[in-house]
């Protein structure tokens, strides 16, 4: 009799381009689960469905369960099996566990070290648990994957630094002011980048946020979305001293904040530093402002450079992370294998139910 098999089957951004991933995206997980309920010998199942990957983590009574899952999925998606086999990943045992560890920790992500995937894996596991399709193997493997992910995110530089310009601007503000709860932030400009930066500040706890733009109604709209205030764009120079962080992203052809106006503002608040973030092209802030005491001026190139440095630093940590995760996967697998073997022995008796997915699909 063959042994129970822990597997992962899926397609990711590594081999499947965007247009293919669009065709593979699961529209209705419950409908798919109903299909998979019919797969004989599928004991446990969790489905990870994100914009960069659709993966099935399962335990089958033997290796044929993987083929059956693949067939059911391709049929549901109306996707050629042969084409799927060219782009899929299919791993079993320790390699499958290692893959999950790498996914959960962000090592396998398109944007290396991103944090969102951890939440997505947790959600996938929670859904599988709620639907009753997890058992001793998936429970153990997922729990260990979360621990391993937390470990590498804490003990390596895989998640260090931010990689988007808006978040780099927020990080700079925290480097200067610590908590943003007392920092007053003014965003000048209502374009896409200004709006994204305002949103980043808001989501990171900036309690005093104001938006100003030539198009007052757009500024009002953005401010309303973020629960921020607005200030008249024309009065910006007189209000500079009231803010700790000023983000400029207007389409103005000339400088809108001169070094002299900033120097004048600093005389009214000499003890408090000022962060100027110039995301505009051409630049909105006169470059001479960076020579002022307690003033820190960053432009788009500076921020892009920091983001790129962070991205490179994360990628350089991948090898170290993989080594740590491999060690953890080895340790886990030696334990899990014993569990699978004993489960296999107990399964030599006739099965009551043939499918974990079936349980999930059942009301």
């Amino acid at each position, binding site marked *: 009799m063959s042994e129970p098999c822990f597997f992962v089957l899926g397609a990711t951004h590594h081999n499947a381009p965007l247009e293919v991933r669009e065709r593979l995206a699961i529209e209705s997980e419950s409908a798919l689960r109903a299909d998979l309920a019919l797969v004989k010998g599928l004991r446990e199942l969790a489905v990870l469905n994100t914009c960069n990957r659709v993966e099935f983590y399962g335990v089958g009574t033997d290796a044929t369960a993987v083929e059956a899952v693949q067939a059911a999925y391709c049929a549901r998606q109306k996707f050629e099996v042969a084409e799927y086999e060219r782009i899929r990943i299919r791993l079993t045992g320790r390699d499958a566990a290692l893959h999950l560890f790498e996914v959960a920790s962000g090592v396998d992500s398109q944007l290396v070290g991103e944090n969102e995937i951890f939440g997505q894996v947790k959600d996938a596991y929670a859904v599988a648990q709620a639907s009753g399709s997890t058992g001793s193997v998936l429970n153990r493997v997922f729990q260990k994957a979360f621990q391993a992910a937390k470990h590498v995110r804490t*003990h390596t*530089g895989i998640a*260090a*630094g931010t990689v988007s310009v808006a978040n780099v601007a927020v*990080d*700079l503000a*925290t*480097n*200067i*002011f*610590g908590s943003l709860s007392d920092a007053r932030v003014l965003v000048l400009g209502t374009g896409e980048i200004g709006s994204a930066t305002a949103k980043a500040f808001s989501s990171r706890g900036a309690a005093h946020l104001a938006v100003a733009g030539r198009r007052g109604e757009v500024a009002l709209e953005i401010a309303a979305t973020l629960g921020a205030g607005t200030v008249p764009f024309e009065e910006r120079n007189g209000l500079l001293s009231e803010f700790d962080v000023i983000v400029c992203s207007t389409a103005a052809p000339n400088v809108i904040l001169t070094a002299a106006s900033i120097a004048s503002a600093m005389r009214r608040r*000499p*003890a*408090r*530093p000022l962060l100027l973030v110039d995301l505009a092209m051409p630049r909105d802030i006169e470059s001479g402002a*960076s020579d002022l*005491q*307690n003033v*820190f001026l*960053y432009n788009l190139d*500076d921020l892009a*450079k*920091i983001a790129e*440095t*962070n991205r490179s*630093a994360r990628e350089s940590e991948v090898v170290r992370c993989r080594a740590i995760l491999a060690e953890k996967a080895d340790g886990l697998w030696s334990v899990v294998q014993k569990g699978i073997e004993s489960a296999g022995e107990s399964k030599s008796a006739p099965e009551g139910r043939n499918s974990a997915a079936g349980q999930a699909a059942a009301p």
Partner: protein
Amino acid sequence: MFADLSDRQWLWCAAAFYTAGLILGTVSLIRGQRTSGFLISCAIMAGYLLQFVGLGIRGHATGGCPLGNRFEILQFTAWSAITLYLVVGVTFRSSLLGYFTACLGAALTIVSLSIPSWDAVLRTHIFGGNPWIELHAALAIFSYGVFGLLALTSALFLLRHFSLKKKHVGGWFSLLPSILDLDHIEVRLLGTGLALLTLALLFGSVYWTRDTATVGHAKLAATIAVWAAAALAFGLRAMGQLLAKRFAWTCLALFAAALLSLQAVDASRHPGAAAVERTSP
């Protein structure tokens, strides 16, 4: 076995632990990793306890707070700075401050232990049995320890300022606290050091006015100069005249001046103190 250890041997052990903290931090920084705040704190704590034992044995031998020669003064200054770090360091939430504290502890203890002439003469009963003078001396040296921690914070501030101005915010610069937090801590430490030194001078002045001949002019001038510099820096900072980088450099200079003033303090001793030439320092 431990009962046979001399005060200096305990202090060498303390120096070894401070150095271990320093090495741990340096290795982490060279490898580009986050410094292990827990391990460094453990090393500092172990060093602190051993130093406490060593200074306790020395204090027992000298019949008072061990401030009888330059070696003892530097040891006590290091111990004071580390006391304050252990009390308030948690609020910094910066493993780098622990690292820098380990640097200060290691530097002061090793330098003082390595120069035998600084501990060649063991002075006993230097305070003439007057507890107020002992309190004066202990407070004054403790305030110097506070200035030591202030100097470390100022160094962190300057590093953070440099990193932000030069736009190098990654790597181990990312471990530094925010510039505003460092600035607030600097002001508080300067205020604390100034308050302690003021108290020390007040206690000392009560004694000095009774017998002005007991304190040398050099010691008097050096101590008042340090106090005046601290008071001036604090006043100018409060008025917004001494800010950011200049304030940090001033704080560093203040600690340097405090260390230099120890020369004058060491040269002026209570006339009732007994001096014993140490044969094996």
